[in-house]
């Protein structure tokens, strides 16, 4: 396995030298800043009006405990952006199928297991970097909103736990999308699979009709992991959600490995 670090470094170079990766990263981060910026005054005004009872009214008529609401806002903001991180993973993974680059990659690293390990490491590294930036942006904006009321909120154990859960979710869902792209060998189909997985959760159809099935979807698991059950309707607890995400990632990576080893590199 001594060649894995060299292969992972090569995979990272591939990621960092691909313009579409930079473009999508800039779009995701720019969009996240824009969304947070546009909502900041709403939250800041609501925080300024927190009463002695500790309740906050973000939306008219909905009064909730301020700490819970602002932590939910912190994680919810990051959660929205994880719709885009798996697409980034698809683009990273899908470059192999443009101009049949996969052939060159396998000439350089013919051992499929090592190549897969290198791809997982490199995609994990880059996705983690972008996810950390998303979490940092969420934290900065939330701090700007709560600093006059509870400046320590964003560094509290509860906030740190949410940030870590977000990073785990972003990473695992991205690995699922990366693996799906390697199995279908197409960026376009990889994007479509990712969008389908997101859309099923976003429409809430399964959450309303079959919550047990909904809990098994990756984005639903992310929502169940990050959001507060007192503020949102969730289909499972955080422990089950984490297990679901880990299972998706393991199954996906295994399928990608089998595809890489068994099929010709066409």
């Amino acid at each position, binding site marked *: 396995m001594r*060649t894995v670090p*060299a*292969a992972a*470094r*090569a*995979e990272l*170079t*591939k990621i960092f*030298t*691909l*313009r*579409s990766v930079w473009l999508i990263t800039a779009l995701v981060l720019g969009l996240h800043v824009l969304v947070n910026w546009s909502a900041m005054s709403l939250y800041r005004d609501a925080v300024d009006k927190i009463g002695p009872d500790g309740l906050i009214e973000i939306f008219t008529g909905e009064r909730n405990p301020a700490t819970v609401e602002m932590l939910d806002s912190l994680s919810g903001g990051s959660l929205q952006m994880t719709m885009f991180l798996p697409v980034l993973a698809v683009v990273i993974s899908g*470059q192999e199928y*443009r*101009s*049949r*680059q*996969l*052939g*060159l990659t*396998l*000439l*350089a*690293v*013919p*051992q499929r297991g090592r190549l897969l390990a290198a791809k997982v490491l490199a995609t994990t590294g880059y996705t983690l970097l972008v996810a950390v930036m998303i979490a940092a942006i969420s934290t900065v904006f939330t701090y700007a909103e709560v600093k006059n009321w509870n400046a320590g909120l964003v560094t509290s154990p509860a906030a740190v736990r949410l940030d870590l859960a977000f990073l785990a979710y972003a990473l695992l869902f991205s690995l699922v999308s990366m693996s799906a792209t390697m199995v279908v060998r197409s960026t376009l189909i990889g994007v479509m699979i990712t969008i389908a997985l997101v859309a099923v959760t976003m429409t809430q159809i399964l959450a309303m009709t079959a919550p047990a099935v909904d809990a098994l979807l990756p984005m639903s698991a992310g929502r169940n992991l990050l959001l507060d059950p007192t503020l949102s309707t969730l289909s499972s607890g955080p422990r089950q959600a984490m297990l679901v995400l880990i299972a998706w990632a393991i199954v996906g990576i295994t399928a990608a490995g089998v595809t890489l080893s*068994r099929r*010709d*590199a*066409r």
Partner: protein
Amino acid sequence: MIEISDLTKRYASTTAVDHVTFTARPGRITGFLGPNGAGKSTTLRVLLGLDVATSGSALIGGRRYRDLRLPLRTVGALLDGAGPVPDRRAIDHLTWIAQSNRIGPARVREVLDLVGLAGAARQRVRKYSLGMGRRLGIAAALLGDPEVLVLDEPVNGLDPDGIRWVRRFLREQAAAGRTVLLSSHLMTEMSETADDVVIIDHGRIVGHGTLQDVTGGHASLEEAFFSLTGGSTQRGSTQAGR
């Protein structure tokens, strides 16, 4: 040394390569000739570990390509049809390949210089002409200064200067004791470059030996080729001219 032994590759009901056996020896250029679709590229893809053989073996220095730890230091390959992502700069393309096999950045600059692309190293590959793309592929094959070269249609798209450069370069490589396996459908080019010739048609080897042995009794390699493959001279003129 390259040893292909009783190699067969089937796709569903089609047999692309049928019990192919031949050897490419060090210090010689072995030309692998055949019409389009004869099984040349499939044989090379199995040799390079990209496709899985149905039966038989393809070994480089007694080992499967897949078992080589840092393969580019042993084998340099140019594949027809597999190329870099067009958005990437040439230097970045060679850099990731070099990094994967622990080859330093100085060698990247060396090979770019060697193939005459030093001035275009920072251009995106999408802006490259067909010939420049071919030179970039050859540069990638040379990164590890390998003992074995496997080149699939290396002169496609090259201008006369480029073709002459490739020919001289391959001769130098063979003279230095390296094994060169060269696939092409260009007869004239092959007759001026190869020491040994292997001819494949419909997935089967129909002739092999030294260039003199194969062309013996024929006016040219082209005549020998069409005699062995059962094709007409007219078809040959069209193909050789491509």
